[in-house]
């Protein structure tokens, strides 16, 4: 690895390579994008490109896009996509937009990697930090990760959320709390769940403030951050209101995520559970599931206070498992941040098992979905069983990464235990 210098040539080469790969797939395999758009692993009700087209059609014909109950995405997508030429006649610009968004995400990731925050934060410096991958490698693993490519080709709108989250982290790392909060507000506006990242990003931004104009009081800082997020979110929601002329978009976008009214299958754990649920228990279990999703935030922030970036990484992994409408796009975001912890990867114990489980799921998931939907010889349990295994694989990765991070910290406190066998409690 070189010293981590962002040489313009390498960056340009990487980005050009990634862009060419994507554009080549778009143009050489014209049937693939629509195939991927239809896959439940890639498109969820809240990110599907097909549903976006439907909303766009209604919007362009001056009908509320939320009529018909198909479109569940943020209203501000509509003017953006209606500015572009129609996808049916001239798809290039839309494809190009998706490619650009991927490249922007990679750029943010590069910045995060180069900051060295993963190895040395304000409160903790890992003794292993020398062993790390450069921004180039990390951006490349993100850009050429099949999950990322498939998400981009499937034109899921989650790429915008991914981009906003990565930029929020990148801004926080580079000592720009305001930018971080703005990006986070955008991410939350697009898919709501990133709001849960507010505490760790606040911690990260607090730790990485520019010393010349730092707000030292934690209370003041958090107040300022929260206010910023609230104001920008309010502005975005207000614009949405002006655009659609009513507040019904709140129920159709965030309401759907909160109440899981659309039970289209996906790779997550919610849909099957709520299909089976009696109506009288529904609201209780919705509350439990959401509480479960959000309860990790506080615990992780407290426990790994010294490494807020690790908290963000782990939380993104947890969201990719337990969120209401997860897709492989969320997994790709998590997997994008995992290589930042190159220095603790040797401390992980189950890397082979995790890789094998995830690969098995990648093969068995579509096979069982085929048996259920097309061949008719299987049923929903087949697919759900595989999504459970998929969740298991990812939670193994989350746990193991957490173990590695904690062990790294612990070995600093207890140098005599370095290299000894220990057990996790």
């Amino acid at each position, binding site marked *: 690895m070189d010293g981590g210098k962002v040489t313009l040539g390498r960056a340009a080469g990487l980005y050009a390579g990634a862009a060419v790969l994507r554009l080549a797939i778009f143009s050489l395999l014209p049937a693939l994008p629509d195939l991927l758009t239809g896959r439940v692993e890639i498109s969820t009700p809240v990110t599907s490109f097909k549903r976006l087209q439907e909303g766009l059609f209604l919007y362009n014909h001056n009908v509320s896009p939320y009529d018909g109950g198909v479109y569940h995405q943020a209203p501000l997508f509509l003017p953006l996509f209606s500015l572009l030429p129609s996808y049916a006649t001239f798809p290039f610009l839309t494809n190009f937009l998706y490619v650009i968004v991927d490249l922007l995400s990679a750029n943010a990731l590069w910045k995060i990697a180069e900051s060295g925050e993963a190895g040395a934060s304000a409160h903790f410096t890992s003794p292993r930090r020398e062993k790390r991958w450069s921004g180039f490698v990390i951006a490349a693993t993100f850009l050429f990760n099949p999950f990322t490519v498939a998400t981009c080709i499937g034109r899921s709108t989650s790429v915008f959320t991914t981009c906003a989250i990565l930029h929020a982290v990148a801004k926080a790392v580079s000592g720009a709390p305001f930018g971080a909060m703005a990006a986070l507000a955008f991410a939350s506006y697009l898919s709501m769940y990133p709001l849960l990242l507010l505490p760790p990003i606040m911690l990260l931004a607090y730790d990485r403030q520019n010393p010349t104009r730092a707000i030292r009081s934690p209370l003041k800082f958090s107040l300022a951050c929260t206010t910023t997020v609230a104001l920008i979110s309010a502005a975005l929601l207000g614009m949405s209101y002006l655009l659609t002329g009513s507040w019904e978009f709140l129920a159709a976008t965030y309401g759907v995520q909160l109440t899981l009214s659309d039970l289209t299958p996906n790779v997550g754990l919610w849909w099957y559970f709520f299909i089976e649920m009696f109506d009288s228990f529904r609201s209780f279990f919705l509350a439990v599931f959401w509480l479960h999703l959000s309860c990790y935030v506080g615990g992780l922030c407290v*426990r790994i206070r*010294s490494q807020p970036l690790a908290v963000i990484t782990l939380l993104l992994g947890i969201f990719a498992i337990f969120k209401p409408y997860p897709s492989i796009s969320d997994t790709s975001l998590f997997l994008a941040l995992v290589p930042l912890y190159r220095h603790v990867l040797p401390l992980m114990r189950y890397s082979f098992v995790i890789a*094998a489980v995830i690969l098995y799921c990648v093969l068995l998931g579509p096979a069982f979905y085929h048996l259920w939907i097309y*061949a*008719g010889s299987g049923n929903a349990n087949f697919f759900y069983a595989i999504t459970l295994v998929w969740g298991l694989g990812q939670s193994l990765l989350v746990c193991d990464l957490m173990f590695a991070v904690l062990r790294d910290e612990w070995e600093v406190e207890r140098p005599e235990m370095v290299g*000894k066998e*220990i057990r*996790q409690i």
Partner: protein
Amino acid sequence: MPPAPTTLSFNTHRARSYVVRLPLFTRAVLATIILFWILGLQTWWDVRQWGALIPSEISFATLYRMNTFPFIHLNIFHVIMNMLALTPLLERFEAEYGTLTTLALFFGLMGASIWVFLLLGMEAIRTYKTNPYFVLGTHNIPTWTTPILVLFCVSALVPSASFLGHLSGLIVGYVCGFGYVKYLAPPEKILRWIEGKLNLLGRLPHYVSVDQKTYGRFGVLPSTSSPVPPAVGLVQAPLESTPRSKRDNEEVAGLEETGALERRRHDGATTGALRLRRDPRIMKLPPYMSLLFVIVGVVWLLLLPFDQYSRRTYISENALLPGQVHTYFSGSDQNVLRAYKHEVNALVGKSNVQINDKLESILKGIGLKTARQNFTYHAAGHAISGQNLYAILQAPRGDATEAIVLVAAWENAKHEVNRNGIPLALTLLRYFKRWSLWSKDIILVITPDSIAGPQAWVDAYHDAHNPSQVAGLPLKSGALQGAIAIDYAQETRYDSVHIVYDGVNGQLPNLDLINSVVHIARGQMGIGVALQEMWRHTDSYQDRLSTMLRGMLKQGLGLASGPHSSFMPYHVDAVTLQPFGSGWHDEMAMGRVIEGTFRSLNNLLEHLHQSFFFYLLMSRDRFVSIGTYLPSAMLVAASFTIMAIALWVKSGQPEKEDGKESDDKDVSTAVVERDLFLPLGVVILCQSLSIIPLYLFNHASETFLTPSFLFFTLLSTLLPHALSFYLTSARNTPATAQHYHLLKSFSLLLLGMFLSSLATLNFSLSLIIGLLASPLTFLCYPAKTALGRALSMGLLHVLSPTTAVLLVGLAATQSGGLGGVLLEAAKAWHVSGTWTSLVVWCVWWPAWIVGGVVVLGRVGERKVKTL
């Protein structure tokens, strides 16, 4: 200095030894609590009223309550919770202060859950003294606060818990812990005197003497102190049963030096599973396990035909009611049939369009709506084109939401003209038209051939066709519920009906459909039934086995076997009926079989779903379901995965230069860092190269198929040599043993993964490929001598995908040898969408290439860094 807390993971050994070693007073208290609970079960004496601490009842005479109330509890849960909480704390207290002191202190004072909080308070103070804070985030929190938290939790969670009682206990505990009430304890001198006088130590078991009390004992929780000698092997387990007293003495003696304690604790961590994991013998097992799995998989398969493992078939769907209706297809319809036969015989040899013109006029004459569809498929330079004709009988009682299909191909799979099938289908339609009981539309499809025509029609019916090759259907009906194809080329009377049921890619129709046909043909009409071309089936083991194996071979090849095959991918259950043999049944009996089957399908309320979709039939009335047979394919697939995991572990172990495991401490976590890039790169390269044969053999035109195959065989033989040359000689640093382990590990992992996924879709194909590829597990080690290398490589070549295709080509002489086989494969790929070639070239071939590279690999000098 007390050692760091470790986990209290559950271990039966330890739990037993813990219970066995509880000191006297603790035992007594537990026994009393249980005793009082049992006493409380009866009704005539209210124990609670008698023993509880009730302030208004306290007088001089009832002072005993001060001592009895700890033993009285509200209910069984209260008892259990208190016992669980009390035991470890009291045990430690007693071990520290001696039995007599505990007895003296606790009698006169306190009560069970209050004792718990008292002891907790003392514990907390003790912990606080040695380890004042625990760290939460960046904040230090004093440890003495924990019991207070516990207290609040308990009072919040447990109804009717005595908050005040617990709080008092806690406060007293704190006070004791700080040592303010030391004077309450009886002087040691007196205790020792009592002990000496009564010889308590000698008389009472489990007695803890005053002199044995040790403050260090607190660090040695019994759960972590089971003295396990240094982990070397499995032989240590019996030592756990060392006589208790002796061990206790040892332990007490050892407490003087903390160094010994530390060592013991370290050893304590390396127990059970860990020790097993480090046993060098474990690493020798996987190849044998893998072999065992393959053998068990094959034996399992051979057991299936026995009565104990297979089941009799049965009709699962109630609505079908096969054979429950009278069939009226007879009498005058025979004259109609004869007339149609005459018309059809006149058409033999005419062109597709001329045939369709004539047949269409007949169908129109019956009064049906008709339509035609053109199709042209291109495969291997061939154009397969034709025109389908179909007619729809609209159900008098239906709403055109469902339909049943009758297929009659002009030519069957062997290119014989369907001389009886077409007239029979026409007559049946004419007959069906007269009945008013149909609730589903009936569609008659007449196709020019048995494979492409039905495929084009079904694809277009479901709008899944490629418009550049296949025309759309101008006329449609509802969702297809089932399809029956007639293949009746035989001119003479017949004896039995052959049911063909294999779909494309090994998909099968619902077993209920086959059972219905068997039931109607055999039970109602008295016609024999045969499966898988087993013209004579005596229901012996051999016959069952060969029926099953033929079925598996057909399923594995995944080719379309008749007009019905194309329907299966669209979840339309279908079979082809072929009369065979010579007997006394005529066309009308065949017609009645079809009539009966249609009446059954007409009854269906929903798609066939009740019965099995995954099964192996071994005679017309015996089958095994997926639950019984799947393990054999999964075992074969798992044999690859086991080796992959073993090789991964092996690649992480340090090289054997230091001989045997020298020092158990260092071996434990010393994992060699793995260099993943080279092996991953080779595996990915081989996997992506596999696109070449797949594309080549599906797109080359017929004349080039055989030459290009031979050329490819040559290249594929040389490729492992070239790759291995690159790995060993051409690079600056030759590949190490670790590289080869990883290479093989990844390749086998992928193979196992593909095969186990495939087993859920096409069991037979997965099993066949798995068995053919299984030598890759055992054969492929970097050979030490040139001879070994040559031998292994020769064996590999015998079992290569290219050899397999060559052999199939040699065997299939009647279908045009190698060229014919490759042509059929290309046609199947383009027309029916058969995956078999994909599996052969993109799953088996890359694994074979990597296997060859590993066999040829020569280990370079070791350059591995230890982490």
